């Protein structure tokens, strides 16, 4: 008898639960919340502080520095376009300063893993290049960026990255006989970066 009463009590408690489920109308949609790191229309401003390494100057140029500021806007959750302005310098063997001011536009693919973003960019633009009061302007710039960012706050992410930069120069007139008609500089950076998202 005692066992019977326990079974009745369990059934009595359970039945309302099933009864409640049966009360939900079948036509009501299920709302699912999915969090994307970025979406179309999202924007960010990037600030970077860089070590600037010359790659094809052997001992003629030393490691320098650079700063960069950029603005980018997402067209999809994966893809952004934008522009960057960089100011970079290197000391040279003859105790001069080489500096370049590249202004580029580019497209960035931004895959995400959890709170991590991995932006990969291709950029093209023009640069003002100068050393020893010689100037080259406008010079072509081609560059590729890669980085890893951690979205520490809703509006801020921090990360590290690198930029590979190609600065070709073509010469004309009397300079051709002396220097040839083409030379180029290759550089790579190691950057600490911060991005403000809005």
């Amino acid at each position, binding site marked *: 008898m005692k066992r019977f009463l326990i079974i009745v009590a369990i059934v009595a408690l359970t039945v309302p639960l099933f009864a409640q489920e049966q009360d939900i109308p079948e036509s009501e949609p299920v709302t699912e919340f999915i969090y994307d790191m970025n979406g179309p229309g999202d924007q960010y401003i990037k600030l970077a502080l860089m070590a600037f390494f010359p790659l094809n*100057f052997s001992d*003629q*140029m030393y490691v320098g520095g650079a700063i960069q500021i950029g603005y980018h806007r997402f067209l999809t959750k994966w893809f952004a376009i934008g522009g960057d302005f960089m100011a970079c310098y290197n000391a*040279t*063997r*003859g*105790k*001069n300063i*080489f500096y370049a001011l590249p202004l580029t536009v580019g497209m960035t693919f931004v895959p995400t893993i959890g709170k991590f973003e991995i932006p990969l960019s291709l950029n093209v633009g*023009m640069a003002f*290049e*100068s*050393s*020893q*009061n*010689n*100037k*080259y*302007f*406008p010079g072509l710039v081609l560059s590729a960026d890669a980085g890893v960012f951690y979205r520490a706050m809703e509006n801020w992410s921090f990360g590290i990255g690198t930029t590979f930069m190609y*600065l070709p*120069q*073509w*010469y*004309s007139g*009397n*300079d051709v*006989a*002396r*220097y*040839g008609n083409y*030379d*180029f*500089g290759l550089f790579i950076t190691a950057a600490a970066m911060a991005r403000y998202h809005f």
Partner: protein
Amino acid sequence: MKRTIKQAIFIATLIFSVFLSSCFNPVITMIREEVDLEDAVINGNINSIVRYTGQYGSGYGDYLFMQNGYIAYKSSASEKQTHGEWQDAPYVPPVLEYDDYLDTFYGTQIIKLAVGGDNSGNNTLFALGINYKTDTGSTVPADKILYKLTNENPHWKEIYRRPVNIPENSNFTQFEDNFTIFCTNSPNPAHRRAFARIGTGENRLTQKYFELTQGTDWSDKSKLDDYGVPIESTIVSTSETYNSVVFINGKVFFTSGVGGTNETASTPATYAYWSNGEMFHWCEAGSISDKLEPQGSIKVAANLYSMAVNKDSIIVGPYRLTVQRIGIEKTGKPTEIINFETNITSQLRNPYTTNVLFALDPAKNEKDNVIYAALVLSGSEGATSGSIQSVGLWSYYPSRGNWNRE
């Protein structure tokens, strides 16, 4: 529609201005030519490097002298043509120094040298100095003093002194008051002649040119007129301002810019070269009568301040711009502006002015020659992006193979 047109005009203007301001110097390639810089041993403003043959100190020989406020010298022997061989000349007039206690300068700043001589090849070295005084709290130039190096005893004798006349409303420059010296600086000692240009009259606008010789001595005031100008007969008296002189065909010819010839130590000049403003001129020796008339000309980058003649080319120093090279044929006839074969354009360049260029042996090609140059900076470091550390003497030694600080 109007907005589209405005945008198109804006973009076109932007592109146009970018290409208007375009310049394509070989920035990257010139960095590849840079060399480690030597520690500079001769700093300061240098206005002259001169050849001198004669007795100096205990030895008779061929010397090079230069000034940078002081006087320095070295043997012109080939084994001495390496970095660091210049020595301060002994027995010079008291050098310019600053007295902290009296808050004034004392001593003499040597601003120019010239070597005179005769047909026998006896040379005399002259030095032009300037001293300063304190006037109502400011340090201003006081006198210009002409010294002569006597062969008998290696010391400098004051032979002329003249108060500096600073024109009103003018920033004083060392040569503005029309008293300076210059010389032919010929490789052949018998062709060396030196001259003083002295302005006379109330405003010193009439120039008188005096040859400086072993016997020149105007220290006695009885030898001067009321304006303090020597009474002795002059070579030329004119309103023209000459700054250099060349020796060719056994005579001297004055020029307003810089001048030179293709004379070597063993062969006479067959061509004279000189500048006037931005024009580089030349003429054959055979065409010269009473003055230099151009047979041909080349436009250079700016007013020339210096010139060095080599066998295959002439290096010229335009005001505040990179040096240029003018090719010459075997006959000595100039051709056109050509490229250098050394790293000279990485060193003697804008914003500096190459104030002095000196080729040791004009019988050698540029790349095989010992060449000295002096850089000066017109304007402050900040305004010109130049460095005061580069102001001074530079050199090219074939053994080193590059231009570098001396």
